[in-house]
C-alpha cells in the first residue's frame, strides 16, 4: 500500500528515469506491445529504444509516471506503424490458422444453437459502465490474459486494427490477407475476447 501511494506521487522532472522498477516495468510492457506487432525481437527492441530515447530527450515534460507512459506509447505506436508500412510481411498464415479455425468451430458450436441462435446461457449480458471498471488494475490483468489467449494471428490483426487504428485496407495490404479473411479473423478475435472478458471479469464482478 505504501508503495502504491509513493508510486503515484509527483516526481521532479527527470527523476522518473531513475526509478528503475518503474522504467524496467515500462520497458517490458512496451517490448511486449511491440513484439506482438512486429514479431522480431531485434526490430521490436530498436523501436522501444527509439521511443525511450525520445522520451529522455523531452525529459522536462514529465513529472508523472502516467504522462511519461502515455507519451512513450504514442511514440512507440507511430514507430510500429512505420515499420509495418515499410515491410510487407509474409507470415505462414495458413499454418497458424489451421488449428485456430478448428477451435473456432468448437467455440461457435458452444455459443450458438444448430439454428444459429444464441444458446440461452451464452447470451451476452449487460456490462457495467467502463468508467468504473477501466480504473481497475485487476481488469487490465484480465484483459492482458484474454489477449494472450487469442491465437497469435488473431491478436496481431486485432491489435493492428484496434490498438494501432490502421484501416482494413492497410492491414490487408501489409499482411497479404483478403478483406473477407480479415473480417472473419477480426470477428472471431472479438467473439473470443468478448467471451473471455465476460466470463472472467464482468460476470464475476456481478457475482460478488
Amino acid at each position, binding site marked *: 500500500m505504501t508503495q502504491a501511494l509513493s508510486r503515484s506521487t509527483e516526481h521532479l522532472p527527470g527523476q522518473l528515469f531513475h526509478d528503475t522498477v518503474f522504467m524496467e516495468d515500462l520497458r517490458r510492457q512496451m517490448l511486449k506491445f511491440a513484439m506482438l506487432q512486429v514479431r522480431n525481437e531485434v526490430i521490436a527492441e530498436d523501436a522501444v529504444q527509439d521511443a525511450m530515447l525520445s522520451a529522455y530527450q523531452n525529459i522536462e515534460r514529465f513529472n508523472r509516471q502516467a504522462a511519461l507512459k502515455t507519451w512513450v*506509447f504514442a511514440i512507440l505506436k507511430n514507430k510500429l506503424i512505420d515499420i509495418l508500412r515499410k515491410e510487407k510481411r509474409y507470415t505462414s498464415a495458413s499454418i497458424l490458422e489451421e488449428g485456430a479455425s478448428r477451435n473456432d468451430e468448437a467455440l461457435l458450436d458452444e455459443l*450458438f444453437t444448430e439454428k444459429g441462435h444464441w444458446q440461452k446461457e451464452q447470451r451476452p449480458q449487460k456490462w457495467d459502465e467502463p468508467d468504473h471498471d477501466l480504473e*481497475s488494475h485487476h481488469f487490465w490483468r484480465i484483459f492482458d490474459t484474454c489477449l494472450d489467449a487469442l491465437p497469435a494471428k488473431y491478436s496481431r490483426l486485432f491489435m493492428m486494427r484496434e490498438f494501432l487504428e490502421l484501416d482494413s485496407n492497410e492491414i490487408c495490404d501489409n499482411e497479404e490477407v483478403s478483406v473477407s479473411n480479415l473480417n472473419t479473423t477480426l470477428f472471431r478475435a*472479438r467473439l473470443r475476447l468478448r467471451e473471455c472478458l465476460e466470463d472472467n471479469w464482468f460476470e464475476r464482478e456481478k457475482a460478488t
Partner: protein
Amino acid sequence: MMKCTEATQLLSEKMDRPLSNKEKLNLGIHTAMCPACRQFGKHMLSLREISQQYVKQNDASEKG
C-alpha cells in the same frame, strides 16, 4: 430472419467497414427483436473503447 451467427458477424464488420443498405436493414430488423445481439453490438463498441484506453495506459496502471 437473419440468424444470430450472421448478425454478430455483421456487428463486428460494422466496426471495420460501412454496411450496405440491405445489410443495415436486415441487421436492424434482427437487433430490434434480439436483445442478445443488441448487447453484443454494444460490446463491440466497448471493446474498441477498452483497446484505446489500453494503449493510452492512462492512470490505470498506477493505481495498483
